[in-house]
């Protein structure tokens, strides 16, 4: 296999040290595809004594959340969230605050960036209504809702609001784009981001969530602005309710194009929860009644460089039905139905919901239409509706305010639809995830640009550090280098990049390195997942264990059959780092490369087993878990792929 595994402590020092360096602004823009020619411009070929002098490639693995809701989101408000965008940013920056349920809460360490992404439809509605907005309360409908909520009939009011919204029968003063109320909510969102954005230390992005959900099928996207408050203030978010909005992603992309023109700055969109779209997130034939054509695939590729692959409502990398040979595919799945549980899941939907399948189908579409619409990098984020990006297993503050820590959340049903059989328990909500971005600086511009070039990875919560480079000339000795990034950028392209025109007789080689979260668990293994389009035009996939800890053996078929073990003690909700290892690095060469076939490769880094949040709750609250409750998990990271495209 041409791979070696070794310890990596010096690299750890370098990587950790880079976190402590004062932030610097890139002398050159780092926008664009990370191809070799671009990288040669930013990395000097003849360094002096200091190996770090003149270095201009991304050295900062920044961790954040691109998908967090606050009380400004209608549903979060209905669930009782009272924390505002300002609270959310303060918390993400590392401050201790009081949660929606009155509990002091603080992250183990600050995040580096955050996007408050409140739903664009009805933004700010509940704070406006319950704050006694005069315009809204002057209407019979608004007054009725207000009185009902205060009078203990919150459920009835919620239902009436939902139905009125669905029918577009909204009272005067309801926050829709163009109204004063909507403007105020959007301005509050922008002001919060501006107030807490601190270049070099913490990035507060401006953003929102566009929430297409027709028929209960999730097609949501988070929209992120590269620019500042003055620029974002020139527009108002795109909504789903006609006539101002639309539930068709094509219309969102039109809005994004118009917005860039208007504000003179970039935006991007990140889709999520294909697992709740019932087969609609990654279409291959038609979308919204229109056959997929070149315009669709080009436009989608243009606006959606990333996909949120893991979050509280499930992890959507792979599914055991689609990947029966992947023993790690059965991880934090939500595969029972669509978003509102109105339609149960059918097996034939899965191919169009999961990231790996989309990456594979993207190759096929590229062969057909010339552009790959699913050429996305991977990130994780929370989708918490609490204002709290608290996704650590031992510090998990749930998805909604009533799901903040309490003895009840171990046994309560989140949703139960007896008609469709879709039932989800609170314990099935995942404490996941975060977005990791390799940026040149902790600024809006640098992080956004890293997202655009897909130099990102998803984690299910831990902040492990992962490097992944592809090229034609990586040699086993490169894994001995204590500066893998220097070698990686010199000889190849990073995660999210492209390889093409394979040199005669050469196979792609990959330099991959992972370092455990300093607060977290040891590593089990690194895998490289390959997908390709075979000579018959069929998609294929294969998983290779490329580096494993504990002296275990990788067999001739590229797999390590020996599990890493398990030290979790459920009674005390603890584990030990006596198995696995703190770091892994290797060079791996594709043993079955065919230069004529399109392919992608991404790395999956897996930790040793650790207690899930349910185990911490069981211990802390003395609650007996329901039968079937998942109590142990193996956290992981997924890098953005590197694509190979045959030359013309």
């Amino acid at each position, binding site marked *: 296999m041409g791979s070696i595994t070794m310890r990596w402590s010096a690299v750890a020092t370098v990587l950790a040290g880079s976190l402590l360096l004062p932030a610097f602004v890139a002398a050159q823009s780092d926008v664009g595809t990370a191809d070799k020619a671009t990288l040669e411009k930013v990395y000097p070929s003849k360094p002096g004594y200091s190996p770090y002098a003149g270095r201009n490639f991304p050295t900062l693995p920044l961790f954040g959340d691109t998908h967090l809701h606050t009380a400004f*989101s209608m549903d979060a408000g209905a*669930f009782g969230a009272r924390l505002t965008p300002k609270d959310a940013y303060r918390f993400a920056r590392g401050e201790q605050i009081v949660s929606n349920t009155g509990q002091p809460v603080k992250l183990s360490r600050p995040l580096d960036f955050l996007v408050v992404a409140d739903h664009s439809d009805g933004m700010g509605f509940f704070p406006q209504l319950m704050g006694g907005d005069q315009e809204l309360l002057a209407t019979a409908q608004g007054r009725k809702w207000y009185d009902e909520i205060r009078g203990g009939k919150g459920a009835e009011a919620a239902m009436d609001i939902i139905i009125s919204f669905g029918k577009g029968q909204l009272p005067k003063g309801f926050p829709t784009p163009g109204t004063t109320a909507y403007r105020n909510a959007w301005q509050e969102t922008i002001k919060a981001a501006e107030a807490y954005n601190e270049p070099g230390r913490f990035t507060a992005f401006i953003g929102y969530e566009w929430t297409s959900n027709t028929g209960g099928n999730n097609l949501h996207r988070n929209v992120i602005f590269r620019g500042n408050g003055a620029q974002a203030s020139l527009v108002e978010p795109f909504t789903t309710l006609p006539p101002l909005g639309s539930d068709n992603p094509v219309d969102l992309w039109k809005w994004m194009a118009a917005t860039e023109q208007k504000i003179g700055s970039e935006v991007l969109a990140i889709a999520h929860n294909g697992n709740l779209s019932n087969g609609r997130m990654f279409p291959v034939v038609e979308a919204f009644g229109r056959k997929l054509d070149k315009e669709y695939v080009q436009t989608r590729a243009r606006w959606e460089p990333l996909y949120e692959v893991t979050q509280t409502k499930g992890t959507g990398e792979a599914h055991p039905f689609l990947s029966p040979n992947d023993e790690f595919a059965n991880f934090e799945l939500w595969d029972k139905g669509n978003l509102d549980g109105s339609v149960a899941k059918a097996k034939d939907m899965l191919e169009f919901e999961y990231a790996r399948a989309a990456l594979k189908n993207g190759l096929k579409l590229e062969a057909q239409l010339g552009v790959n619409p699913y050429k996305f990098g991977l990130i994780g984020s929370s989708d918490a509706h609490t204002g709290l990006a608290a996704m650590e297993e031992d510090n998990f503050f749930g998805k909604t305010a009533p799901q903040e820590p309490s003895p009840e959340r171990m046994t309560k049903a*989140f949703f139960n639809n007896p008609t469709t059989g879709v039932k989800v328990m609170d314990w099935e909500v995942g404490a996941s995830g975060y977005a990791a971005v390799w940026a040149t600086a902790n600024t809006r511009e640098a992080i956004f640009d890293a997202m655009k070039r897909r130099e990102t990875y998803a984690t299910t919560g831990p902040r492990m550090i992962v490097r992944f480079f592809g090229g034609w000339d990586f040699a086993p000795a490169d894994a001995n280098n204590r500066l893998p990034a220097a070698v990686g950028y010199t000889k190849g392209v990073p995660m999210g990049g492209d390889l093409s025109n394979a040199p005669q007789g050469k196979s792609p080689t990959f330099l991959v390195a992972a370092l455990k979260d300093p607060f977290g668990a040891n590593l089990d293994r690194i895998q490289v997942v390959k997908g390709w389009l075979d000579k018959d035009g069929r998609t294929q996939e294969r998983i290779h264990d490329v580096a494993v800890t504990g002296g275990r053996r990788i067999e001739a078929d590229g797999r390590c059959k020996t599990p890493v073990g398990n030290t979790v003690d459920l009674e005390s909700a603890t584990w030990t780092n006596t198995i696995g290892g703190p770091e892994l690095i290797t060079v791996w060469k594709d043993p079955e490369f065919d230069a004529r076939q399109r392919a992608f490769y991404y790395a999956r880094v897996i930790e040793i087993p650790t207690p899930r949040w349910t185990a911490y709750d069981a211990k802390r609250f003395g609650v007996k878990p329901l039968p079937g409750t998942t109590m142990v998990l193996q956290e992981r990271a997924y890098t953005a792929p590197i694509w190979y495209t045959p030359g013309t």
Partner: protein
Amino acid sequence: MKSINLALGPLLLAAVLAGVPVAQACGYHDPSSVNLGMLNLAYPDTLHVRTAVWMAQLDGVISRDEQPAAGDPQTATIRAMFRLRETSLRLGWFRDRIGAALDGRPVPAFSIVLIGPMLWTRFEPAGDTLAMTAHAAGPGSEDVVIVTDAPVVAALLEGRLTPQQARSLGLVRFYGAPQNVADVASLLDRVEPGGARRMSQHNQAVEAN
């Protein structure tokens, strides 16, 4: 008493079946969570009471329901019926105790909502006693609203907790016009401690059922 909590489920389902596009979906809508959330909007920080209750239970200050979750809907319904009856009887005892503390000073109407079952109970002065409406639809428009939970009422009745202690532990929160809140709080503070014997008898009666 669970009927209020469960009310939203069929409504949401009906909306979905009717083809109403529920665009504001973050995910799965648990009706009891919506009820609780809405209460938190109308009466800010009522969710803090819920936290205070489970913390006091873990600390042994008030009793904890050790009964495991019912495995089937029928058992759950039967248990809910018994709990409603038990709680209603306790609230009746509580009304009697509060009524005994009336001393001629004016007291505004007030409502108690137990946030576990989301059960509203109204109390209105009626001459020199208090009239009680159990399982009320909600508070009157001018009522002082008291947010607490069933185990707190039980602890107050059993003399394990004074109203002042309950307030200081965050187990009870008052909402309303400041003077009205002060009057109701003062009334509750005048409630004589004790009554454990009577509650014990009552509990035996409940258990016998």
